[in-house]
């Protein structure tokens, strides 16, 4: 693992870049090109994520600009159905907002919350894994017991409880303001265990290697050894888990928002949109539920496929 092509004179970022460069050089790219399903998944995920991030630029209407929203256009079906209006390709909701635009803005919220939650789990999990693996002893057993206990419960239950407790504490204040933060915390905290376990086991392996011993002998501090030497060598599997976790986090957010404990209608995510649409399912306005739902499934499915492929491609056993 202590590959000679890693330039040790450069900083942490430079070194991380080397890791990615190394990954680019092995047959990752070849394996990508030879799998049509993966290419399609990458295109779908790319289009969904880019268009969501660019929502304010490309959305045909601004759903939050009250001046442009008119009840006159409420509950219009999609453009290709009788009574549809070409100005609203996917129909409109009860307030007359364009579905396509609300979905774009909603995906943006979903993806940002998902990414932030994954970043939080990643930081928590990697830190815990490094400390447990390198420190060993009591710290290790305490952290890993906590991880074991948390793993006995499904992540969604933990996120739900965390969310419930925090909103209970903030119940007297305006909790809408904190909703975004709370949901990121709840999902982030509920998913750190996998990162911690994987990083801990690779830390245990790396710790025994000669380059770490050499660094220790030359008087490099533990923190520097952890961050500069061990961390970069654990990043491969972390990338895989992060990808799969992004799908899980987006699903988790959608589920919490659907249950009504996530994001409020003022900051709708895909889950919130589905919940709102669901209330009008029986009035025949299927497009309010189906389009955000299909967007969510496509997003999660494509990210899942990419994660699966990345896991297999980076697994030396399967090559």
């Amino acid at each position, binding site marked *: 693992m202590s590959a000679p092509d890693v330039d040790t004179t450069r900083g942490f970022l430079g070194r991380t870049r080397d890791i990615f460069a190394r990954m680019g050089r092995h047959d990752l790219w070849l394996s990508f090109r030879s799998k049509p399903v993966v290419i399609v998944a990458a295109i779908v995920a790319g289009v969904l994520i880019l268009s969501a991030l660019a929502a304010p630029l490309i959305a045909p209407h601004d759903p939050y600009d009250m001046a442009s929203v008119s009840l006159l256009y409420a509950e219009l079906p999609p453009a290709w159905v009788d009574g549809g209006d070409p100005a609203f390709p996917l129909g409109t909701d009860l307030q007359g907002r364009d579905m396509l635009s609300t979905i774009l803005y909603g995906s943006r919220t979903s993806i940002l919350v998902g990414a932030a939650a994954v970043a939080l789990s990643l930081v928590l999990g990697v830190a815990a894994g490094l400390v447990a693996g390198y420190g060993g002893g009591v710290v290790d057993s305490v952290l890993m017991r906590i991880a074991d*206990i948390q793993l*006995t*419960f*499904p992540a*969604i*239950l933990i996120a*739900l*409880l965390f*969310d*419930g*407790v925090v*909103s*209970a*504490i903030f*119940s007297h204040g305006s909790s809408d303001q904190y909703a975004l933060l709370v949901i990121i915390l709840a999902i982030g905290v509920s998913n750190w265990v996998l990162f911690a376990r994987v990083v801990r086991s690779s830390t245990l392996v790396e710790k025994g290697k000669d380059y770490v011993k050499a660094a220790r002998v030359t008087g490099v501090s533990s923190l520097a050894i952890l961050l500069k030497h061990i961390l970069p060598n654990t990043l491969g599997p972390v990338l895989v888990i992060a990808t799969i976790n992004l*799908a899980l986090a987006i*699903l988790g957010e*959608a*589920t919490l928002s*659907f*249950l*009504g*404990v996530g994001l409020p209608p003022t900051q709708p995510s895909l889950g919130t949109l*589905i919940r709102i649409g*669901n209330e009008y*399912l*029986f009035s*025949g306005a*299927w497009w309010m*539920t*189906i389009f955000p*739902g299909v967007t*969510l*499934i496509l997003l*999660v*499915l494509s990210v*899942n*496929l990419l994660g699966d492929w990345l896991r297999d491609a980076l697994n030396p056993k399967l090559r």
Partner: protein
Amino acid sequence: MLYFIIQRMLQSVLVMLVVAAISFALFSYVGDPIEAMTGEDDPIELKQQLRASLGLDQPIPIQFARFVGNAVQGDFGVSYRARQPVMQLIAERFPATMELVFVASLIALFVGIPAGIYTALRRDSPVSYALQTGSLIGISMPTFLTGILLILVFSVWLKVLPSFGRGETVDIGWWSTGFLTVSGLKSLILPSITLGLFSTTLIMRLVRTEMLEVMRTDYIKFARARGLRDRSINFRHAFKNTLVPVVTITGMQVGSLIAFAIITETVFQWPGLGLLFIQAVGNVDIPVMAAYLVLTALMFVVINLAVDILYFFIDPRLRADRAVASGATT
């Protein structure tokens, strides 16, 4: 083996104490129960009297001990919202959730395992291909969306199945069952499919992977060389060896079914524990939240313990390994 089981039981007790501590902390630090029970204008003396009578003026460790003692006897206090004993609310809702989880587990096992075996044995048939693709979608599909789509198709468009509630129920003692009426059974169909779909796909994929792995071993080749019939090889030799991981995952799946019942029950307005919990979260009804937390944790711990003990009966190697391991440590 006894050593191992005792060790696991101690661990379970520890988990339960941690969970109890969390729910106790909910009580103590989230809002003031006295404020919740009294009005704005009640005199201070009354509040202090109430505080003393509830033991809330005692030191924290004593309060915690009392909380655990009460919880063990099934006393979680009175719901802030419904003004009824929490245990009574839970007992009313318990059968609904258990019947739903039971049927969903049956679906997961009786569809998931055969589908997994089939896709492993007939890898290239079109049916296998369809099942594999379907399972990928099933795994990426959020539970609530499955429910909504089923409602849209079967309740809104085809109008053949009910979209909410349990239908008519029959009381047997304190247990109300929906198994004995036509409307009860019809109401069960959509929620149990919704709840079971994810576990079904997971179990199917797992059985398939394990079967493929086992079919490659020398032991199966040898069985073939002995001239045993396919049927006997597939089921008596191969399938038996896939059981350890399948039992683990199935056990964990029953646990997550209880958790995911929250979502299914919300979609279908199913009057079970999950709906009770979600409403409690919405209303900040701490006693109900705490009781749900402790009870769910108890169910999880019991399931995990049962799975661990089951291993000994399924896999003889574990018995030998553990005996050596425990012999070495003592």
